[in-house]
């Protein structure tokens, strides 16, 4: 999915504190455990995290 700069700004300013998060990472990008740590550091409750390989 293509993401516009404005949408990206929206992501960057997303408040994850207290939110439930599903973290799906990818081998060629950011992996699941890293996303989980990132979301947790922002106060999120990561209910599921996984790394996918799309090739």
């Amino acid at each position, binding site marked *: 999915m293509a993401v516009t700069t404005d949408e990206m700004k929206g992501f960057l300013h997303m408040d994850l504190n207290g939110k439930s998060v599903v973290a799906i990472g990818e*081998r*060629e990008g950011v*992996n699941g455990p890293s996303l989980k740590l990132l979301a947790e550091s922002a106060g999120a409750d990561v209910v599921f995290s996984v790394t996918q390989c799309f090739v």
Partner: protein
Amino acid sequence: MREPAILNSAYALAHAPELVRYGSKPVREIRRDPSLLPSMTEGLRPWNEVIGYPPNQVFIGNLQPDDLVSIPRPWYRNRVEHAVTSGPFGRMITQAAMYGLMKLCDDFDLLTIDEDLAEQARLELIEFDHRRDRIVGAGPAELKKLLDGGSGLPLYHGARVAGFIRTAHEQDPSLAASVLLENLACKATAALAVSDLLRYSSLAPSRVDYLFNSGEEAVGDRYQRGGGSLSKAIGEVVGCVNATGSDLKAFCAAPVHALIAAGAMVAAGLYDHVVVLGGGSLAKLGMKFAAHLRNGVPVMEDCLASMAFLVGPVDGYGMRLRLDLTGKHPIGAGSSPRAIYEALVMEPLARVGLGITDIDRYAVEMHNPEITEPGGSGDVPRTNYRTLGAMAVLQGEIGRGDIDHFVAEHGMPGFAPTQGHIPAGVPYLGHAQQAMNRQDLDRAMIVAKGSLFLGRMTQLVDGVSFIVERDSHS
């Protein structure tokens, strides 16, 4: 210590449109929605389109990877005219020949094919003379009996049911017909690549000492799932009577691990001729078919790919395998793309004072982008090359604006089928040897990654790399 070399490469594509329905994703999706089967079948390509498909011609060596730059996309519409099935280091075979190969590899009468299919296969497999008499067809009554009452899977060819593969043990999921079909397809396609490799190398099969299988199959039984060793089974088919072998597992990185291990065996003086091989992954046929149908493109994961490499002491004509410049992704390294490339590329280069731009060509994950892009996975090799280019910027080797130029000069378009271990850097080895023979290439780096986390035993990824260099006479 003897210096090892990769002496030759062989690649094969077996057209398998009627096996696509037994790929992992099609099986699951068609079970959920049976109406997908006819639309998927309609989306499959005929043999002549598979032959003329430019990435396939690159895979067998009739085109160079760079030729794809000048062929407009979509490549499936801009096919090569008068394309042929044989190349300098590879070939394509029809589905009939593939069924015949499976039959001649079948030591347990698992597979039954009809008489017409057997006859066609025998005609196409002349070089397998020592086993061709095993390609015997069954009469209609025998096949019908199996289809009506046997436990197994029907096999299709064209518009008809032309065969059957039976389950070998009713209570053993490792010996179910679906698993045996995967394993037999892998064995057959790998045997083809090894047979061709030895023919290209003018090496008698009896001179092979050791075989390393690096495929994605899991041959075994209920007590030892994935026990192996398909390497030895393949060596038997090809006539490597003096060889033994083993299977090396590391997800898609296995072939590069195996090539390094083979080089070490040769360097140590343990063996003179080691074959590294990998057969086709039936599970990955049609893996992205739903995205292909959604986007109105052909179902392009329709071929089983296989490969084989001969490793021996340097002979002046092969490619030097620099064991002193191998890279590995250690357990303690991070899993970000940058951490992976620091381990696999920068660390070995830094050991001898080389920079990223000192490598003429990198072969990374060589997945054909035309297959991956409709599903949203992007152009995987390009992403990898851009990561490498960004690291060259950080090293101060190139400017920020030079990344595209770096990608064009040190990378190449993806051309390999999405068969996991097949695209993992190694499809370039045949091209690299040709380029070195033309004096167009001095040094290439092969980089492979493996998604260990998919097996749910670790969150880790894996990766390994090595460098090949032009030998004195090449």
